[in-house]
């Protein structure tokens, strides 16, 4: 008797649940499911909370390794090696390694004009705000077909030569790690920081 009742109960429940769970009932047409996961950082803070305090990935870099790679030269002279550059010596290096792209006098091209001449265009003399950038860039990336091949001595001499050709130093001036950061570039006073901030004003 009890078994029969349980059986009826089961049948009844199953029927009821089947009826209630028909697809039409399950998806109310009026509910719109809002998708919130459209931003790249959605949920990131909660995910970060599961991270360990330290990952400890990678290996420590020692001073020797860093010194070998740390090649940049800043306007305050940090990064400059000890050295003495002379325009006279730079002229010889320039003729051999630079003139084919930048012209015999630094303004004939075909590549970037380096020296100011009456025909206009951006040059070291009229557009570069810091003299240290010449050293940094020449050592970093020049000559184009053999980047990084110049010695620090050659870079110092070329830097002196380019400053001389642009009328910024005298031919006999010695360029050193002390004097290069003190060279005042004519274009420096023209430089301003970006003032665009979005919003309606066009700048």
């Amino acid at each position, binding site marked *: 008797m009890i078994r029969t009742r349980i059986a009826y109960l089961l049948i009844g429940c199953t029927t009821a649940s089947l009826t209630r769970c028909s697809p039409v009932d399950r998806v109310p047409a009026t509910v719109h499911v809002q998708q919130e996961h459209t931003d790249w950082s959605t949920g990131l803070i909660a995910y970060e909370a599961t991270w360990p305090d330290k990952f400890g990935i990678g290996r420590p870099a020692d001073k020797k390794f860093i010194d070998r790679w740390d090649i940049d030269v800043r306007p305050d002279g940090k990064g400059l090696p000890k050295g003495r550059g002379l325009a006279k010596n730079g002229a010889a290096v320039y003729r051999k390694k630079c003139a084919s792209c930048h012209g015999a006098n630094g303004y004939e091209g075909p590549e970037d004009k380096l020296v100011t001449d009456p025909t206009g265009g951006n040059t070291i003399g009229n557009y570069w*705000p810091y003299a240290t*950038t010449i050293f940094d860039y020449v050592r970093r990336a020049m000559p*184009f077909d053999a980047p990084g091949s110049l010695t620090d001595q050659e870079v110092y001499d070329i830097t002196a030569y380019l400053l001389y050709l642009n009328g910024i130093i005298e031919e006999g001036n010695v360029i050193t790690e002390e004097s290069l950061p003190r060279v005042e570039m004519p274009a420096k006073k023209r430089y301003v920081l970006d003032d665009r901030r979005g919003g309606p004003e066009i*700048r």
Partner: protein
Amino acid sequence: MSVERDYFLQIRGLVRWLTATVAIFLALVAGLVWYQHTSRGVKEPSFDSKIVVDPGKVQGAPSSEVGYRSKYDSPKRIATYATASRTPLEELQGTITPSDLHFERHHAGIPDIDPEQHELLIHGLVDRPIRLKLSDLKKYPSVSRICFIECSGNFRYGKREMTPGEVCGLTSQSEWTGVLLSTVLRDLGVKPEAKWLLAEGADGALMARSVPLQEALTEAIIAYGQNGEAIRPQQGYPMRLVIPGFEGNTQIKWLRRIELTDQPVMTREETSKYTEKVKNGKIRMFSLVMDARSIITYPAYPKRIEKGWQELRGIAWSGRGKVTKVLVSVDNGKSWQEAHLQGPVLEKAHTAFKLMWHWDGKPTRVLSRAIDETGYEQPTYKQLVKAREARGGYHFNPIVGWDIEKTGEAYLADVEDI
């Protein structure tokens, strides 16, 4: 009736029938010729019936390890220089740029880097400088983000026969995957005096840029993935910096060194390049964020449209956040309508816009202007020239458009006349 008479009638009937047949045939030919002339050169393809193939009756090609494009639709980058190539914006669908069509700009060629030989050094104003290999980077919690990368020198004009890609194809969009810079720096102990970072590449130019640390910390990614696979060599394999919304040059490819500093290094690329002349003889530097911009990619040169309904399409983007609105004019700026933006609209991402347009066949000019969530409205060329007292330079993002001629041909509109 005589036999002759009967014979004559039969011949006459035959001649009449032949004449009628020839006349109908000639009329059909003339009609066809007339139709082909008047349908503006649009001709049915003239297949040799022997080579018409029903693909349903032929065994197809086998599977392959790497897929390929249909030979009938195979867009190419616009490669004008050895150091740059442009994305053919007018050939693309949606907003993701196929990785092999992502624009390229490099200053000493593309290096060939074996990831086993490559390391990223992070040092400077940190307590614990480290060296990371690609396999190390992949151990950190990862992040993926869809955003555009645009070169700040991305505006060319000067002739009517220019495609969208030629005008501003130095912008592309990918899903970038990597680790947030902030996640890596968290482990190293950033010293309070650190205000800038120098990022440096391992290419022949050792490309280097200084970026304000605070701005980079919020969103910068050290990325190793692009659209589901490793970054392509042209885009910085094995790792690059991605700083959503910033000018492309700061997003150093082939990244090998990050140095935290108290002041910018003032590299050549942030002084003598990637700076722009502005009013009063000044030169603007560290103009890092890309302002809002848009371009209609259809209709556009070299496409030709037909009278009637068409979907005018384009992309809009802003380095300052989401594009909130794109206004389109189909009457040379007399009136503007709001285009439909394809959702989800993402921050600092190419956003597709569309407008159904019924072209009546009369010559006109179509224009688009993007508006972003800061309220910035993409300016006209004249507005930019007035604001900067300069007729070009980096970060030049004027409204551009297309002159539709009565033949349906589209040509780049004179930007100085918009």
